[in-house]
């Protein structure tokens, strides 16, 4: 009958894949989500009754859809959990596609403060606090997808300083979950892992932190647990320089990047035995403000002064020692640069130790072999900081480009 046909076709038009892949304005409507909305609205009403309503950081969102995945150029959030998952033996290319459809939908909703479909704790989704969820593919994932892997998508070469533990190395699928709120990170991690469980098993998880939101000015270079200002020479997101260092332009990875994850144990007890001058010489920067030793230990701006590697002391020695970290890490070759986005970790001590701390080193670069490996080679050969740091985990992933509303992460190899 005519009316039925009309209804049929209209329904088909209005209810398509978009509903699954973040159904526009209607997404998140449901009685369960409405409970969350009551909380959100309640807190908002409370605010308006105050004379000076505090701006709640929990409502801040980072767009999910775009040419690049979020969580790379995004100013690093306070907390991050990195998951490395192994694809189950029976999962084929279509299985990977189904998994990425679901995980993309979860991420698209949760990052915007909406509960995931079938979210058992929807109330935990209402405060995204700049949540981002970023996916990267390991060599085996790309193999199952029957796509051509970039030459650098493999474990890094063995370095002499490495003491790698398989429990913190490699993996088929990387998921970086980061937000300015640890409860948001935990809920998102739980939701993502529940939906990934029938396709993958957990290989490792690592969590890290920076300063909490609002503790220091946004954009302040992080400090690691040695007290060092860590990441001063990073390219700046939004600049041509950053784009050139980070974004890949080849084939299915165009708009994506390469990720290196290294767990670097830091021996705090040994570091404590070094005096302040020695600590500063090991890196070539002042502890006070991160400025190079040829600049001033006073004032925030000095952090970004260019180091003068030719400067010598009265005794004729270089002010910034040749064995220091910033000398060894720096290359005269313009392409040997990376973008660091690290987190600190501070885990339960083992045996008789009182600390189990270090750096969850994460770097993004368009080509791992051309950009990261030469730097690490030099640091491996000579870097005074090696006296106190030991890489104990290592993994490399290809981070695919972002997607638009209606698409999914990984569609450039699974579609």
């Amino acid at each position, binding site marked *: 009958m005519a009316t039925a046909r009309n*209804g*049929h076709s*209209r*329904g088909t038009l209005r209810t398509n894949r978009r509903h699954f892949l973040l*159904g526009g304005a209607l997404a998140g409507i*449901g*009685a369960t989500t409405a409970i*969350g909305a009551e909380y959100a609205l309640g807190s908002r009403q409370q605010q308006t009754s105050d004379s000076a309503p505090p701006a709640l950081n929990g409502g801040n969102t980072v767009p999910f859809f775009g040419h690049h995945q979020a969580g790379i150029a995004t100013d690093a959030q306070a907390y991050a959990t990195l998951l490395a998952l192994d694809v189950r033996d029976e999962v084929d290319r279509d299985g990977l596609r189904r998994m990425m459809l679901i995980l993309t939908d979860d991420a698209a909703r949760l990052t915007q403060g909406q509960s995931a479909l079938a979210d058992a704790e929807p109330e935990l989704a209402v405060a995204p606090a700049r949540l981002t969820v970023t996916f990267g593919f390991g060599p085996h994932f790309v193999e199952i997808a029957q796509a051509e892997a970039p030459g650098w998508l493999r474990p890094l070469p063995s370095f002499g300083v490495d003491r790698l533990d398989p429990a913190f190395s490699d993996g088929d699928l990387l998921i970086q979950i980061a937000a300015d709120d640890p409860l948001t990170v935990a809920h998102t991690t739980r939701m993502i892992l529940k939906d990934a469980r029938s396709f993958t098993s957990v290989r490792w998880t690592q969590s890290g932190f920076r300063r909490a939101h609002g503790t220091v000015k946004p954009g302040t270079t992080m400090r690691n647990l040695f007290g060092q200002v860590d990441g001063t020479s990073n390219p700046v997101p939004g600049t041509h320089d950053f784009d050139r260092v980070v974004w890949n332009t080849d084939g299915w990875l165009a708009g994506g990047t390469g990720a290196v994850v290294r767990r670097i144990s830091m021996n705090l007890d040994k570091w404590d035995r070094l005096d302040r001058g020695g600590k500063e010489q090991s890196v070539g920067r002042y502890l006070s403000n991160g400025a190079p030793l040829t600049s001033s230990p006073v004032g925030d701006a000095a952090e970004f002064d260019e180091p003068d590697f030719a400067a010598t002391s009265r005794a004729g020695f270089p002010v910034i020692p040749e064995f220091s970290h910033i000398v060894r890490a720096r290359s005269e070759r313009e392409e040997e640069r990376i973008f660091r986005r690290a987190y600190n970790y501070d885990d339960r001590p083992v045996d008789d130790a009182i600390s189990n701390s270090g750096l969850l080193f994460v770097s993004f670069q368009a080509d791992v072999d051309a950009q990261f490996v030469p730097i690490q080679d030099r640091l491996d050969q000579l870097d005074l900081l090696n006296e106190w740091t030991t890489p104990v985990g290592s993994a490399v992933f290809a981070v695919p480009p972002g997607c638009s509303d209606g698409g999914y992460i990984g569609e450039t190899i699974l579609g």
Partner: protein
Amino acid sequence: MTISHTRIARFGALVAASVSLLTACSADTDTPEANHGPAAESVTISDAWVKAADEGMSAAFGELHNSGESDVTVVSATTAAADMIELHETVENETGAMIMREIEGGFVIPASGALALEPGADHIMLMGLTGALAAGQEISFTLTFSDDSVYEFTAPVKDYAGANETYEDHSDHAAETEAE
């Protein structure tokens, strides 16, 4: 998407949910009159999903919206994924336990309102699955309304540990759905 936008959307949902409750409590559950157009033209579903299952039974959930000026009634549903579908409601039985059973007269979606299909509440019950429902698959459904108009939608399959409801003790299905 800004937060204020999200909150407005949520506020809308909250109002819709309240309207739904109020309308559901009223006695007026008449089917729409023909002069308001076919029911299917005013109905949409959002956030639809189906619980993954290897075999046997499963259920579909989501939020049905009615933009029309009259209540509409879903009288049946079909899918190629199951031999039989029932529209279920949750009620308290004589011992005080909450049980699921087929709803008499179908799902009523109130005018300018919504009906939530959720675990532990109203849902679309799938019996005799024709194959495994694997996470990430998309399943097509057709709803038929009391005026014979139909509405078709697809819903993704998701792993879900809940929705293990107790059903009325009929001989044609077990006391509980399979968890996986």
